[in-house]
């Protein structure tokens, strides 16, 4: 469904992605994990048209996304739940949901979809006409997900959905992801929270300093001896007796 190959992105002379390749199949949940500064958000930006790559390709259902621009990428069926949620805080909850359907013109279906979202996220219904900035962090995350879903994406991208949320709220967010998955939405998830990501996804890529270090199914990765090494950049972070850096 989505194929990223040899993707390179630089900010000035600093390389953020150095030839990243990954694929997401229809109906799959794929996660990209990696520490801060690994290039996860840059990867999301490159897929959604936020940055122009220096090299490589991003192909969605046979069409290159590279010169499309954000609006047409949304129209093709990719929505992003960005890092830090970025809901429109001066707009009401209802207006945020309407804005999520900006690429659509089927008014009746939009209203029905909003109603369906409010069924999924009852907390939002209670606060429908309040400014979204007054919502709690967890409610804002639900709003950000609902807003992204209103574009009727076939591929949903989530950038650090658990960041800054209390553990109970993270549970809720991941229950929502599990449900979306059962509804057949394909998900590409970027996370620092390794165990959450592995638990929800079919396959996982480990991204570090702009390159994919490892990949595999969740079970494979958890058993792989190099996993911690790939993730943290040096082995035995907790043991401390094998501190040499492999890369």
């Amino acid at each position, binding site marked *: 469904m989505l194929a990223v190959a040899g993707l390179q992105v630089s*900010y000035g002379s600093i390389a953020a992605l150095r030839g990243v390749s990954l694929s997401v199949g229809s109906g799959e949940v794929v996660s990209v994990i990696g520490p801060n500064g690994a290039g996860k958000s840059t990867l999301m*930006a490159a897929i*959604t*048209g*936020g*940055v122009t790559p220096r090299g490589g390709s991003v192909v969605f259902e046979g069409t290159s996304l590279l010169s499309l621009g*954000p*609006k047409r990428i*949304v*129209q093709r069926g990719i*929505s*992003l739940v*960005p890092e*830090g949620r*970025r809901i*429109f*805080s*001066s*707009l009401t909850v209802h*207006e*945020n949901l*309407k*804005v*999520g359907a*900006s*690429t659509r013109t089927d008014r009746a279906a939009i209203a029905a979809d909003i109603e369906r979202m409010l069924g999924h996220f009852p907390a939002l219904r209670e606060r429908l006409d309040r400014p979204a*900035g007054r919502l709690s962090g967890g409610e804002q995350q639900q709003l950000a997900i609902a*807003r*992204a879903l209103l*574009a009727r994406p076939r591929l949903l991208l989530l950038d650090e959905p658990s960041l800054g949320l209390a553990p109970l709220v993270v549970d809720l967010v991941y229950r929502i992801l599990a449900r979306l998955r059962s509804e057949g939405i394909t998900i590409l998830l970027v996370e620092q929270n390794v165990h959450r990501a592995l638990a929800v996804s079919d396959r996982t890529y480990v991204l570090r300093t702009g390159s994919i270090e490892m990949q595999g199914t969740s079970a494979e990765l958890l058993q792989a001896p190099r996993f911690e090494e790939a993730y943290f950049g040096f082995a035995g972070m907790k043991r401390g007796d094998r501190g040499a850096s492999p890369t």
Partner: protein
Amino acid sequence: MTILLQGVLDAVSIGGLFALMALGIGLIFGIMRLINFAHGELITIGGYAMVVLADAPPLATAILTLLFVILLALVMERLAFRPLRQASLPTLLIASFAVSYLLQNVLLLIFGGNTKGVNFLPSLSQPIEFSGLRITYLQTVIIVVTIVLLVAVTLFLKRTRFGIQMRAAAEDFRMAQLVGIGATAVAVTAFATSGFLASVVSLLYITQIGVILPQTGLQPALFGFVATVLGGLGSLLGAAVGGFVIGCLAVVLQIVLPLELRLFRDAFLFAILFAVLLIRPQGFIVVRWARERV
């Protein structure tokens, strides 16, 4: 009591013009993060359009002036600001200065530096008197038009699908793009609306002062900028409120200042505004700034 009421009437009519001015400037700033100094030239050029169209029927003059100024605002967006959409704030600011001076000099080239009289609908300047209050027809028109336009712009931004998208873009332009709002459509609508507001100010303001020079638009634009800052940069409600406050201050100063100091009214006005901004630098209404992140 009569003096007070008279003051309120004058304040509302002057403040209304500043509010419309500030709204036009604030709309572009809120959405594009562009402080458009060339907004004043839209006013000036509207005035010259009225000079050129002096012999046409008044309705035709008004409509053609409106259309011409809106068109000019759109051309400005297309030629000067669209290529700079990714540019930094200082670059945009300097570009708007360049557009402003360019237009002033083009006007100087075409019309010369002498004052031209504008005699649009002279009957509007006649005063109406009732129970000791004096108000001209033009002031009445200004008050009514201001109220209608403020309500219309508010309804547009609050109630229509496109208005909600514009507010979303004003808060976080990049995120607005990520939900699929077209950047160009938003920019074009913002400039068209701003141009429309400028053209209305132009018709009312130039009719009121009755003369036009290539620099005429500078002063109202300056008041408009101060009003947007006073109201809280980025807030449209703030811009309108700021405009009214400046209008009220101007009228109050006109009444309380001794005769020999009235010439320097604007100096007092700006001193007060300066003091207000020292106490409340964020303006009346605080807007959380959109995050800029790569």
